């Protein structure tokens, strides 16, 4: 091999090595997943029956997201069996669940989520604020949590709750609520919502199928008296 050729090979090898090491994530599946996907699931679906609600805090300060879902709860009798109406339909009633997620100011602790099962009873509404009203406080900004410094609330005025029946989301999807700095908005913060559809996500991954594993684990938890 001529010296010129050797220098070429060395140059290419050095450049490629720098690129791979610099990217770091080429060997880190998590990093690869960020840009290419296929390593880990981003949605519960299509294999798992959850709605993943993630909150993303890009305000630069502590933010507590008040996430509320509404599902139809099955009305049961004293024995725990479902009740039926005259037409043979299962009797249900709407029930709301509110979860407060405290997202830190700095990544990656600014991105957290919670899974809501939707196999037995569907999740019909997902939004911010305890009562899913525009006047509700959707995000509490700057507070230090329990006993912490005072902050202020951001209403969910510009953010409608997402509706399953309207097709905004479905079981298996990931719903993301993001708070970002924005001039001209209440408190200087803008709220946005995003949906990542589960049905068109891959079902086979190079890494573990996180949400399917979680569902299988829950299904294995049966108490002795059940």
């Amino acid at each position, binding site marked *: 091999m001529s010296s010129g050729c050797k220098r070429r090979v060395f140059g290419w090898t050095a450049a490629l090595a720098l690129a791979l090491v610099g990217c770091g994530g080429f060997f880190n599946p998590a990093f690869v997943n960020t840009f290419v996907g296929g390593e880990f699931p*981003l949605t519960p679906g299509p294999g798992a029956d959850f709605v993943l609600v993630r909150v993303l805090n890009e305000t630069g300060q502590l933010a507590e997201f008040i996430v509320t879902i509404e599902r139809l709860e099955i009305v049961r009798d*004293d024995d725990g069996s479902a009740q039926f109406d005259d037409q043979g339909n299962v009797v249900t009633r709407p029930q709301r669940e509110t979860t407060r997620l405290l997202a830190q100011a700095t990544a990656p*602790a600014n991105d957290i989520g919670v899974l809501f099962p939707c196999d037995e009873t569907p999740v019909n509404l997902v939004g911010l604020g305890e009562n899913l009203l525009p006047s509700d406080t959707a995000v509490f900004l700057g507070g230090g949590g329990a006993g912490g410094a005072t902050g202020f609330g951001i209403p969910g005025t510009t953010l409608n709750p997402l509706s399953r029946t309207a097709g905004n989301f479905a079981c298996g999807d990931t719903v993301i609520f993001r708070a970002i700095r924005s001039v001209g908005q209440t408190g200087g913060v803008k709220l946005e919502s995003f949906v990542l559809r589960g049905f068109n996500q891959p079902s086979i991954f190079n890494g573990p199928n996180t949400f399917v*594993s979680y569902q299988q684990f829950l299904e294995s938890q049966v108490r002795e008296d059940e």
Partner: protein
Amino acid sequence: MAARPHEGEVWPCDAEPGSPGYRKGQSVTNAGCRNGVHRRRRGALAGLAMTAAALSLSGSCDAFNPAFVDLVAPGLGGSFSTLNNAPGHVVISFVNNAEVDERLIGFLETSGGLTLTDAEKRALRPRVRFLVRVTYSTGISAEFEFVSGSVNFIDQRFDASVFPDLNQNDLNNVVVVCDLAAVEVLTSSIEVFVPVELRAYDLVDVAGPGGVPTQEFQLREQIPPQFRTLQIDQADAGGNVVLLSNIGLRDVPAPVLSPLCGSVVAITMTGALRVPFLETVDDRPSFDRQDAATVASIGGRYEFEVAIK
């Protein structure tokens, strides 16, 4: 734009081809004049590789992987915005498989005004809360409070609304993004809600009939329903348990170090909520304050298991 030398052509450093200054034998490269075959194309390619390497070092690997997931914002108007894919998630889950002692259920039904269906009795679980600290590989940490158990399970003579954690919604799972350095339950934060009033007695010396000294239990304190911190068994220097409490030495939730991205950290709790009854003294939940073993066991006994799925 001046003509550029082609691969293999020999050009002088400071002359255009065909110009009077052109001399055979010299070559032009981007790096300057060198003897030999012109290397413009190879130099450009090397420059591209170096640029790409520099970009990667600066964290912008987009030049290699320009794929992003497009997300559509629903609701008003409709607009297209993009968010980067998450690197992956770790699910931290808490399953409350603890039970409630039947004697306690019986007391609440007979004296506590609680009415439970058979299905509700089967599904009854003590109200438990604790903190989980998540430490990311970047060094940042965050704490989450898990709350799980039957809501409004309390002696009806007390107002459940006074205890927010008693009727707020459960938080039994948290999804965090990768990569994590550790997930640990803060054992000093594990609490269980005791749903009844506890009556604390002291055995005191009193003068009996005819002045004969005797002892009797006297009520000293009435502890209302409240969350009670669970204690770990006490052991001596040799590791022998000297005082049984709420959690055995080997049943403490273990920390998880560097959970793999995409895994599920499952925290499972078993055991039973119990309260003492000072027999022949009081038919309500009660105890002798000087009975260290009984005091240590108030709240019940539990086991924790932490597994990675």
